[in-house]
């Protein structure tokens, strides 16, 4: 079964919850007790329709406030794919949550209220999805029922959005526009008679058509060692295997490899998945690799192909998304977690803040606050083995951990 993770973005009341609820309902993913709860609640609230947004609304605190405050995960499946929606809130302050939700997604849905068109928030939603290099973005122009399914309005919004697209950094991102009514169900799962002028796919058809081999950004193979397996049992007395996940490309038995940081060379002797031996470890699979030579390898080391080394540096510059209530300042130390590798890092220079709405940059800043996005240089106490984020989505990203609170306080994309 293929799995597709989707991030959603939209401003409050654009209809995000309704759209997700509609997807669940029309794919018959709502169970009868959940549907009953929604019917009951809708009735209590005096609605003459089913409020599908009730299918996704989470915690008590939120019910009181009436807005989503964190990333919630919603699951549904069709015959061909399992879908995981990371529902991220649309409120201005929550850049942090949007970055989080988008970091694990291969597709994103950006919602626009057809009555409002492209607003400042839309810029932000698009900016973040582009920053995170999400391969497929679907722009769902919602509430078409409130504008009489007017083709002209749809085209105007599309043209406005296309102006934004010219400013994006990741130009290869695929953008698809779909006119929908989440409330009434037009073009969500079933194609609508109200939009005869639209001959594209419905939202679900489009999601179904995405090729999961293609949705992951590819690069060169990187194998960060997570754990060393040494059974020391009678049957496997001399077995020494390196457990980890393959990122970016694939590795095969016989490949010449180099181990970082020691730079020792060896060859892949076997690849195991549980009790089976395989010839090739495909992208994103969790395997165990044994090498021809007896080399000293521990967690945090990286196995790479001999002809394709990453950068090995004690400093780097990155775009970071700051997520903590305490400011980031120059000179402060944090732990950089790059994959499974942790190093101590010092903030060297804050170059500038980037306005996440394509309105430019701010120079001369000496601190970053929650939800800021900025270009920052770091110095490390030992080297890491990275690729620029634009070449390798996994090996080019990291998180920042506060040395006192242990909390995750930021995410970064290495330039």
């Amino acid at each position, binding site marked *: 079964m293929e799995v597709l993770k989707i991030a959603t973005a939209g401003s409050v009341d654009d209809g995000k919850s309704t759209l997700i609820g509609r997807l669940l309902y029309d794919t018959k993913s709502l169970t009868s007790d959940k549907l009953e709860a929604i019917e009951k609640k809708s009735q209590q609230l005096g609605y003459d329709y089913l409020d599908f947004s009730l299918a996704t609304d989470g915690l008590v605190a939120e019910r009181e406030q009436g807005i989503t405050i964190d990333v919630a995960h919603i699951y549904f499946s069709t015959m061909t794919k399992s879908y995981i929606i990371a529902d991220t809130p649309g409120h201005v302050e929550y850049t942090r949550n949007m970055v989080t939700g988008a970091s694990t997604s291969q597709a994103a849905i950006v919602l626009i209220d057809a009555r409002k068109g492209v607003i400042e928030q839309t810029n932000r939603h698009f900016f973040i999805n582009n920053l995170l290099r999400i391969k497929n973005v679907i722009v769902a122009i919602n509430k078409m029922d409130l504008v009489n399914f007017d083709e002209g309005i749809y085209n105007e919004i599309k043209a406005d959005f296309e102006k934004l697209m010219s400013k994006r950094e990741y130009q290869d991102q695929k953008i698809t526009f779909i006119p929908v009514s989440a409330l009434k169900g037009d073009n969500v799962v079933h194609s609508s008679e109200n939009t005869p002028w639209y001959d594209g796919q419905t939202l679900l058809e489009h999601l179904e058509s995405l090729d999961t081999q293609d949705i992951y950004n590819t690069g060169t193979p990187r194998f960060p060692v997570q*754990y060393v397996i*040494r059974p020391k049992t009678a049957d496997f007395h001399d077995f020494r295997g390196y457990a980890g996940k393959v990122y970016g490309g694939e590795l095969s038995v016989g490949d010449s490899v180099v181990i970082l940081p020691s730079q020792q060379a060896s060859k892949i002797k076997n690849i195991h*998945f549980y009790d089976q031996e395989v010839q090739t470890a495909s992208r994103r699979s969790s395997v165990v690799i044994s090498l021809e030579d007896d080399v000293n390898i521990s967690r945090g080391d990286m196995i790479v192909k001999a002809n394709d080394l990453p950068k090995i540096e004690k400093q780097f510059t990155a775009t970071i998304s700051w997520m903590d209530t305490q400011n980031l300042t120059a000179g402060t130390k944090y732990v950089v977690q790059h994959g499974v590798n942790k190093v101590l890092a010092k903030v060297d220079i804050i170059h500038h803040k980037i306005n996440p709405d394509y309105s430019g940059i701010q120079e001369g800043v000496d601190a970053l606050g929650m939800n800021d996005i900025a270009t920052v240089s770091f110095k490390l106490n030992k080297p890491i083995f990275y690729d620029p984020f634009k070449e390798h989505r996994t090996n080019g990203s990291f*998180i920042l951990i506060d040395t006192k609170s242990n909390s995750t306080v930021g995410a970064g994309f290495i330039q």
Partner: protein
Amino acid sequence: MKDTSQINPLENEAIYIMREVAAQFEKPVLLFSGGKDSITLVRLAQKAFYPAKIPFPLMHIDTGHNFPETIAFRDRLVAELDLELIVRNVQDSINEGKVKEESGKYASRNVLQTTTLLDAIEEFKFDACIGGARRDEEKARAKERIFSVRDDFGQWDERNQRPELFDMLNGEIEMGQNVRVFPISNWTELDVWSYIEKEKIEIPSIYFAHTRATFLRDGLIWSADDDVVYREDDEQVEERMVRFRTVGDMSCTAAVLSEASDISTVVQEIRTSTISERGARIDDKRSEAAMEKRKQQGYF
């Protein structure tokens, strides 16, 4: 198998998480209930460390209200895989006066487990507890992290959760804190069942259709086989063909009518079924916010 491209992405993710636990923590434990989710976790842990043994023990918080089939199954599994099993009993917490047994129609030991669990974590100084919770089970779980930090009192602060980005898991904690880890967070009930089928994993017999003495209450079917479930005199016992979709505490786990007597018919039934799994568990129906409250108090 020539390459690993056909491996379920959810399985790859869970194996990755298991290995992160073993690498990042000093004293992890796998919370084992005897249910299908925790049995699936055991298989995933086996796969993560093969050919080495699973490098952490299992722990069962025994409510004393388990289906006998579950306990027999547990002991067999542990013996076969040569695992270490720790059992801590809710009955002991009751005897020691730490918790008070509920009484009446909806009496259950489900809530009481929390105290026994927290005491055991303290006793063994566990810093990571692997659990089988899934985000699709319940609304409040939808926001649960894969590494979920609990404070000294086992409490979950849902407002102050660490963001989780990419697949990087931050297991840094202070003394006294511990992390609940949920490797199958992203699995649905159907994913678990399909996996059990594909992997030919053995599960306790009560998951399959069997005839059982039962009675009806609130539209749900309850076991009348043992004395665990409180039954009023006018609640009539009748033999029914049933199976259980979860195997928690007997006193709050209802059965469903079913003819599905093997794994493939169960998977078929789940695929077409329309009652969500927790719909058959009375403890969540008590109030809409029930799960959330229990989680804040340190429940799995």
